[in-house]
């Protein structure tokens, strides 16, 4: 079952800081078992670098279970690498072959400045959520949970969208660096649920406008959906757009009343 891969060539992006220029550095992996995960391969390489007195390659990662959204590598030009529906940390070496050359880069998007090597700053995502990606329900005083029945299909659809891990692969894959899939996933999760209705339109407006202030605009390439490790459907963007349009009308009406 276990095979050994031989002679992999890694071309890894190294960059000292946000304002310096970077370049590729080449490393050879003589041998690695295909049971290893992609990030374990980098761990091993980093151990070797430290032994050689060099600085380890900086990259973001944490849960290694495909759920925290921290890992974020562009592998051979594909966000999270070749396996569909799989975050970088869940990618295993059995997807590669002996002799392969693997190019490893950070997410590249103007809203995600490179911090160092393969690590980028994705805090613009947090700004979008802070603008309205919540339901206002202060602690205490919530009614009994079963007083708000939610039809199973609605709850399932909300959950499909809520699965977004906030990794940013959609942005990295988008030729325009747009964050529509991420933003729409959050809006859809909350706007589908009965609990989310009171703030439905203000949420759509505030989040979309915050998104627009950081990210590029969507021209329907669909690369985001293909790159998304949670396979979030691009349909959520249509729902966001519809809610945003309604919001513009409705919020204006309400404003004119005050």
């Amino acid at each position, binding site marked *: 079952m276990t095979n050994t891969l031989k002679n992999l060539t890694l071309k890894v992006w190294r960059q000292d800081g946000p304002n310096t220029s970077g370049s590729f550095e080449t490393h050879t992996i003589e041998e690695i078992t295909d049971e290893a995960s992609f990030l374990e391969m980098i761990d091993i390489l980093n151990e070797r670098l430290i032994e050689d007195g060099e600085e380890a390659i900086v990259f973001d990662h944490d849960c*290694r*279970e495909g759920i*925290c959204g921290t890992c974020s590598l562009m592998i051979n030009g594909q966000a999270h690498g070749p396996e569909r529906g799989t975050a970088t940390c869940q990618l295993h070496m059995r997807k590669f072959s002996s002799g392969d050359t693997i190019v490893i880069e950070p997410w590249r998007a103007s809203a995600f400045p490179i911090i*160092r090597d393969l690590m980028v700053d994705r805090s613009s995502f*947090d700004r979008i959520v802070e603008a309205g990606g919540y*339901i206002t329900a202060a*602690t205490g005083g*919530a009614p009994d*949970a*079963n007083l708000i029945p939610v039809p199973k299909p609605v709850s399932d659809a909300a959950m499909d969208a809520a699965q977004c891990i906030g990794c940013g692969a959609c942005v990295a894959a988008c030729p325009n660096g747009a964050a529509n899939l991420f933003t729409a996933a959050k809006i859809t999760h909350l706007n589908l649920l009965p609990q989310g209705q009171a703030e439905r339109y203000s949420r759509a407006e505030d989040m979309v406008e915050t998104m627009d202030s950081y990210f590029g605009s969507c021209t329907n390439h669909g690369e985001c959906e293909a790159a998304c490790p949670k396979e979030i459907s691009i349909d959520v963007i249509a729902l966001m757009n519809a809610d945003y349009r309604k919001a513009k009308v409705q919020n204006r009406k309400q404003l004119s009343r005050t």
Partner: protein
Amino acid sequence: MSSILDSKTPEGPLADKWQNFKANEKLVNPANKRKFKVIVVGTGLAGASAAATLAELGYQVDAFTFHDSPRRAHSIAAQGGINAAKNYRGDGDSVHRLFYDTIKGGDFRSRESNVHRLAEVSVNIIDQMVAQGVPFAREYGGMLDNRSFGGAQVSRTFYARGQTGQQLLLGAYQQLARQIGQGGVRLFNRSELVDVVVIEGRAAGIVVRDLMTGELSSHSAHAVVLATGGYGNAFFLSTNAMACNVTAAWRAHKRGAFFANPCYTQIHPTCIPQSDDFQSKLTLMSESLRNDGRVWVPKVAGDNREPHLIPEDERDYYLERLYPSFGNLAPRDISSRAAKRAVDAGQGVGPKQNGVYLDFGEAIGRLGRDTVAERYGNLFDMYERITGENPYDVPMRIYPASHYTMGGLWVDYELMTTIPGLYAAGEANFSDHGANRLGASALMQGLSDGYFVLPYTISNYLSEWLNKSVPDTSHPEFAKVENEARDRYNRFASVGGTRSPDWFHRELGKIIWDYCGMERTEAGLEKALGEIPALYEEFKKDLRVTGGTDGLNQTLEKAGRVEDFFELGMLMCRDALDRKESCGGHFRAEYQTEEGEALRDDDNFAHVAAWENTGDPMAPNRHVEDLVYEEVHFQTRSYK
């Protein structure tokens, strides 16, 4: 031994204690709340819920996390579910039953009053999370669905597919994000607490390192909350996220906070077995799988036929055989030890013979592939990605791994540590799970602490400080602690040895796993207490950290965390050595029944061991808090 530990358990019958506390606590009026600054370190379930709620109440909150965003905390990885005594099923659940199950699950080593409060507020948590938009699983009628988890005979576990922790954390993160957006909370991301500052015996603030710049800075407050998670990564290989570490709790311990029951660690029975020596992390397969999966090994040691070629009567479904009333849902500690015994006896399966089967063949036959896929699809996919095997066709292979830590900072009923003004919440404290935690109860505890306990209890302390001045960061103690931290990081960077922090962590983890893991013996623990300090000496002499102390340096960060694991490792072994009984996750081979079950010693060990730091990690002081049971009676914990 007399105790200097005051649990501050409120008066009255058990079921009234929390109400009595709330009726009598000192409050801070709304207009005064904004005069108080509270620091919350950690923005996982416990920290995010605490920070958001404290800010809603009007306190000024500064929240710190070493993650880039609160949404990345390790809580995100919880799969299976969260317990609550809702009794929506009408299957006989109640606050009392959840309380009792938790006490029994903890092998009668937890504080009754805390556990009862946890069971009481469990129902509010579900209400709160639903109001915030957590998409829990529903039945066709639109009502919430439930499943069962180990150690319980009722269905009280709420879940959101296999991503319950993710959905709960996103719920809490959203509440926090709302407060950040509105200015109620200032968030310091990618900022690691490197020390706690104690002035005149009370918590005055913290020192943090900006992971991006390497800069150290001081922050003062009226109270500090540590919600910094557990220390399961002491074993190196564990199901915890890579960055989980003990530093915050350990630094607090070194500044005077007692550390309770460090030897109570949970080894989770269903993880994917280690495939290689260089592996960095193990992956959990949710316990919920045991609802439908059946655990077995070949009856004959060394039988290495393919699983489907092993006939039914040559399989040992050992959990069903040994624990007929709980079967495959026997609690974690019991299931883990049973797996270890099977593997030690040579009945292990897989290429390294280091696992047991978790077989869905029967469930697929009974329920159909689609239902099984609906329940566990994403877990099956994850398993296949990691192992390359498809669990619909071939049984999963599983083996126990370090997963959760019941031990942690000692806290009283109000969640305050032994340092006044310093609180600990979530997995970072020791409070509710005794010697073993039941599945789906950590999420419950984290959210209980953060949403429903701390926001009440903290005013009891803060009210004393109204209109009194507390030291700010110009106090010389802050500069002193900052300098100590600076010296420490300079020291790591200048050892100039040959081994990376990870190398030391891996070696340390092996020692702790071998001698303070699933089974412990006096001789083994003595051995570990010789080996750990020796390895620690080597660490001090032979560590190599490349790169400097300025700017981002993940190797340097790791060095600090590993050093704290060394000292913690010594304390874990010391605690395990001194607890001359077996209970829950702490299994001392010398203390077992004829059937090989844990043998408690209630006469001598029905207490919490809370350790005081003396400056010498090999010679800490042991204090005890006696556990007084008013409501429950000691029983042999039986799941037969």
